């Protein structure tokens, strides 16, 4: 106690100082409440309006304001899971060996259905199918290396369209989207792009 200067001691004992501290605490709480309220208001609007289609100027104006927030924090989405179901495509490739023989592969079949890698693989193959010229080279080179034992000459990347079929077709044994069936019928599909393995 004796270490503290006298003036400080007096100041500390003053009731006004204590009151000041109380007021400061109250204001801190109020500011905290205000800041949290502002964030809550802002974020709730973001959550509710992000998925709204941008068909009118009001939504577009909102988008312009919120876009940096949504993009930088990874919140930009429409939450439209499985709508629409759409027409699927499967990715495959054909390795052409030195004897001119063709070996077909559907890489998704090598990925465990239950693991996270399955979802990544689906996304990766979709990316390759969407932009084969941009991403195809990397995968073609990888497949040439992977099947080096076949002495590959070229690799052709394929996109196999899936078909819609109904219970009657299924009961009559028709399974066009069955991976095994797809793999055995690759010849009917048009290639996306062809890469020469020897040049890689």
């Amino acid at each position, binding site marked *: 106690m004796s270490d503290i200067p006298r003036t400080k001691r007096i100041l500390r004992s003053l009731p006004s100082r204590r009151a000041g501290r109380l007021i400061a605490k109250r204001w801190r709480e109020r500011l905290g409440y205000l800041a949290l309220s502002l964030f809550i208001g802002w974020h*709730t609007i973001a*959550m509710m309006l992000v998925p709204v289609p941008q068909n009118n100027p009001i939504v577009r104006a909102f988008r312009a304001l919120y876009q940096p927030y949504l993009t930088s924090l990874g919140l930009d989405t429409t939450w439209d899971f*499985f*709508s629409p*179901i759409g027409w699927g495509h499967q990715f495959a490739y054909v390795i052409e060996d030195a004897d001119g023989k063709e070996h077909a592969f559907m890489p998704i079949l090598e990925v465990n259905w*239950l693991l996270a890698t399955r979802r*990544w693989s689906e996304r990766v193959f979709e990316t390759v199918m969407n932009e084969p010229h941009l991403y195809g080279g990397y995968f073609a080179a990888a497949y040439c290396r992977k099947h080096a034992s076949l002495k590959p000459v070229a690799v052709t990347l394929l996109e196999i369209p899936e078909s819609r079929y109904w219970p009657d077709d299924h009961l009559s044994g028709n399974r066009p989207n069955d991976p095994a069936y797809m793999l055995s019928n690759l010849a009917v599909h048009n290639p996306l792009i062809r890469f020469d393995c020897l040049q890689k």
Partner: protein
Amino acid sequence: MTVSLKTIRRGAEKRHMPALATFARLIRESFAALGRAWSQLWFQSMTTMPLEIARMGLGAALIVHYSMAIPYLFEFWSDAGFMPLAVALQSSEPWAFSLFFYFSAPWQLAVFHALFLLSCAAFMVGWRTSWVKWIVFVGKISYEARNPQLAYGADIVVCSLLLILCVSPVGRAMSLDRVRAVRAAKRENLAATVPAYSSPWAGAGIRLMQIQMAVIFFYTGVSKIKWEEWRDGDAVWLVFITNDYYNSLILDVFARQYWLSNVVTYATILVEVAYPFLIWQRRTRPYMLAAAVALHVLIAAFLALIHFSFAMVMGHMSFLRQEWLTRLGAWWKRKIGNMEMIYDGRCGFCVRSMAWLLAFDGLKQISIRDFRSNPSPIVSKARLEKALYLVLPDGRALPGFEAYRYVVLRVPGLWWQIPFFYVPVFSRLFGHPIYNWVAANRGLLSTAIGRHARAVVRRVRL
């Protein structure tokens, strides 16, 4: 009689005053009512339990998810992979942010990945949660932005929930942070208790997560209604015939009983559209919650969207009522019964060990007795000199290792130790001798710990 202008003005003011005052009071009261409604909606004082469940679940999901990414680390997120930085920057949104835009060397990616996985583990167990949560969130958005082609619904769900957890006061319950706080108090006095954390801030976090989940279900339900395949009841069949979700067993069942596929399709829409409206009501909440969780369990089981379903279920946990959790805790406590641990209060090491053990006992299932000051009527002093004892409700007394083994299975906070105590043969083979050695040398250990503690205090003073 003459009336001055001043008097007339004063009279007019007097006449207007009540009207003005009433108007001002009305405005003030309206604002006050709005403020009260706002506070009631957002700032109800609550414990963080629902958020903590979501924290632990999301932390575990992220560890599993990104551990699986280790073999593909450079293929997915480095310049050596299919998405070089230049391509990523070209295809990303203008405001996209990723740490990997700035740290692109493979060793930096590997170091960050290790740090990220450790942070996920710390986030899951609630160690230094107040800053670890931010590393997890920044890491998550960094992976998404560096290779946006990999992201799918689950990633955005996780990002949305993580952001809410970041702005909420998580780590105050069911966490190592809480254990450390309780342990610190118990080190001073074993009987000390630390009140459970509850605050309006936690209430705001829970409400944000609830609204987030309601918004997700609302939009996903409404967007389905737009499409013919959902309206016609064919959507579920069409999902299962796509190669990504191809399931011949389910297709066989649906092909024979197509009405089942229709029912599942319509039930999905019904749950998703009803959820945002009925989840708020007291009576309907349990049913909506059960329906939503069941929907995600089915999605996980039949579409293998396990990560997505688990993240969604963690989000739904925000709707768990406080009283349900309290009732569940009380039921568990009743089922197990009281357990009394008898320890040596003169042994510093024993007291410290008790402080650790009790810090994990969030439900306060274990009562304690120091046999030096309060002798036990069940276990003799001679036996207690040799080992710690646990007295069960039926009067049985378990010594040393067996006491710990019994407690570990029955105290939820200690479940993480089950693998150590319940490995067949090995746990007992090594557990007994280790415990007996520690018990026999507890005086020595107490002295060593005391000396170490004094040295630390001296170092701090210096």
